[in-house]
């Protein structure tokens, strides 16, 4: 942004950008708007009420679904993030970079329904083969390993979220200088200590935002989970089955509004926090630089 640029044009571009973000946000705001409307979706008159927010925690179905979704989110994050970290380290050191990149980013390009149905049929067949194998060997240890259950949903979601966390972690790793790991090794730290003491504290921000991102993705994902889940209901599948049946109950709107509000607050605080830290760092740096000049 040099000095000669036309300030008006710059502001115009900024307003255009914010306008696009606003239009993309209308569904989120619309859901929040409905969640406070007493007579629910699509009604003409509007009566403000907080009733539904109260109902959220008494709605057994919703709370059960929330519990399952949280469990799914936690387990997927606990597995996907370390895997993304290992994959990023492997990618950095690998000489043939095309293969890991293709394998790890390809799930981004596979549409949800296609991935879901392909995995569904694959797991069913796998389960049938395991059952057949069990009969041959006369034991039923792994009969129900791959039936559609929590495990299959977790595997599907790991495949869905790992590209996102892989890229996020790779971006933060881009700024890390490998000489520091070597320096740590030269100081007597072994591989793990060098990683844990030196590299991890510097890529921690990336790892945490990857975790937050994965949790949000798992929370809001419907298509793949609905195809691969077992008998339990996750947050989104309950919302959809309500939509397809008697219509989303008031508290469902309230819950989704609450979830998106919490997520926005999380992302918003990350933005503000980094802004503040950048501000304080630059102010401190300026203060330090001052005396030298004077």
């Amino acid at each position, binding site marked *: 942004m040099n000095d000669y640029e036309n300030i008006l044009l710059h502001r115009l571009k900024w307003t255009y950008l914010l306008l696009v973000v606003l239009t993309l946000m209308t569904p989120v705001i619309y859901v929040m708007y409905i969640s406070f409307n007493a007579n629910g979706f699509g009604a003409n008159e509007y009566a403000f009420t907080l009733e539904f927010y109260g109902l959220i925690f008494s709605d057994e179905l919703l709370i059960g679904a929330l519990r399952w979704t949280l469990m799914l989110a936690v387990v997927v994050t606990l597995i996907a993030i370390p895997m993304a970290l290992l994959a990023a380290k492997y990618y950095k050191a690998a000489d043939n970079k095309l293969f890991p990149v293709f394998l790890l980013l390809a799930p981004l390009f596979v549409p949800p329904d*296609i991935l879901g149905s392909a995995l569904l049929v694959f797991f069913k067949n796998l389960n049938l083969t395991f059952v057949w194998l069990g009969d041959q060997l006369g034991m039923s240890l792994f009969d129900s390993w791959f039936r559609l259950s929590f495990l299959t949903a977790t595997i599907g979601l*790991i495949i869905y979220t790992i590209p996102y966390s892989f890229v996020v972690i790779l971006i933060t790793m881009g700024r890390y200088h490998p000489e520091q790991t070597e320096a740590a090794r030269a100081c007597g730290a072994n591989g793990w200590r060098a990683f844990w003491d030196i590299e991890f504290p510097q890529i921690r921000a990336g790892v945490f935002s990857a975790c937050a991102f994965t949790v949000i993705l798992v929370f809001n994902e419907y298509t793949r989970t609905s195809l691969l889940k077992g008998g339990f209901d996750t947050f989104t599948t309950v919302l959809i089955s309500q939509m397809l049946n008697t219509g989303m109950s008031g508290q469902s709107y309230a819950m989704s509004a609450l979830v998106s509000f919490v997520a926005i607050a999380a992302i918003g605080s990350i933005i503000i926090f980094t802004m503040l830290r950048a501000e304080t760092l630059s102010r401190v740096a300026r203060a330090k630089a001052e005396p030298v000049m004077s």
Partner: protein
Amino acid sequence: MSNPLTDMADGDTFPVGLQKKAPLRERLVPWAFRAPLVFMLLFFAFPMAMTVVFSVFERTMFWMEPGFTLFSYENFFFSARLVNFLNSMKYSVISVVICFAFGFPIAVFVRKSIPQIAQHRVVLLFILPFMVSEIIRVFALRPVLQRNGLINTTLLDLGIIDEPITALLYTHTGVVIGEVLSFLPFIVFSGFLAMEAVPKFIFEVCDDLGVGPWRRFKDVILPLAAPGIFAGSVFIFVNGLGVALLPNILGGAGAVNAGLIATQAITALDFPLAMAVSAIMMTTLMTLLWVGHRLFDLTKILTPLS
């Protein structure tokens, strides 16, 4: 560039001068780094490849049995499904173009005239729409686009139109609107990543040489950012083709894409057909990525990261 794989491997001491075979533990460690790839091979690459095999199975009442028949492909190619598939391809291309027209300039603007530290934060703004589940976002579009929806009522109040536009919903336009609103952020992300390949001084140099924004875009930015743009466009195209949600909720007559065909087939217990559609989608995807890689080496996308 030291190779973390090897240094991390020799994790413990040996008696002096003894050069025996590396212990199991040392050979195990490089495998820990390959575990994610093995997982992806086992549970992603292998199942997607198996779709081709399952697509030629015989269909039974409730499941399928091994066999070889091209009935599913025939069922796909010689029926209205093919017309729908080609149609949804056409509309996907339209939404790619619209997304690119609306989204890419934002990436250029962010990269060009926003200070370096603030850039990531501005791009983060585009993650906010994903805070609500994709399905609620699409459902919420209905009251906006329908006959007495938000758009029609505001236009009517302003007197711009005198009777509501019905083409916004339950038509192909509705699907395209849904696709654009769902996938616009992705062109901003991939554009932003692609613009990483365009060094900052390019803008000063072009100004210096008196190069107008359009020519600068055509001759300089486009060639440099091509891999990222291509990846973003393929992402939107393939998702437009494969997300069943959009035509299902917003589409009307004939608005059926591959994803919807697959899921409808699954509900109708016609698993071989669903696998045939998945196989066809995977081949389209692979050819697109292969062509893209030949034209502009796609690994260039991640080079700014490593």
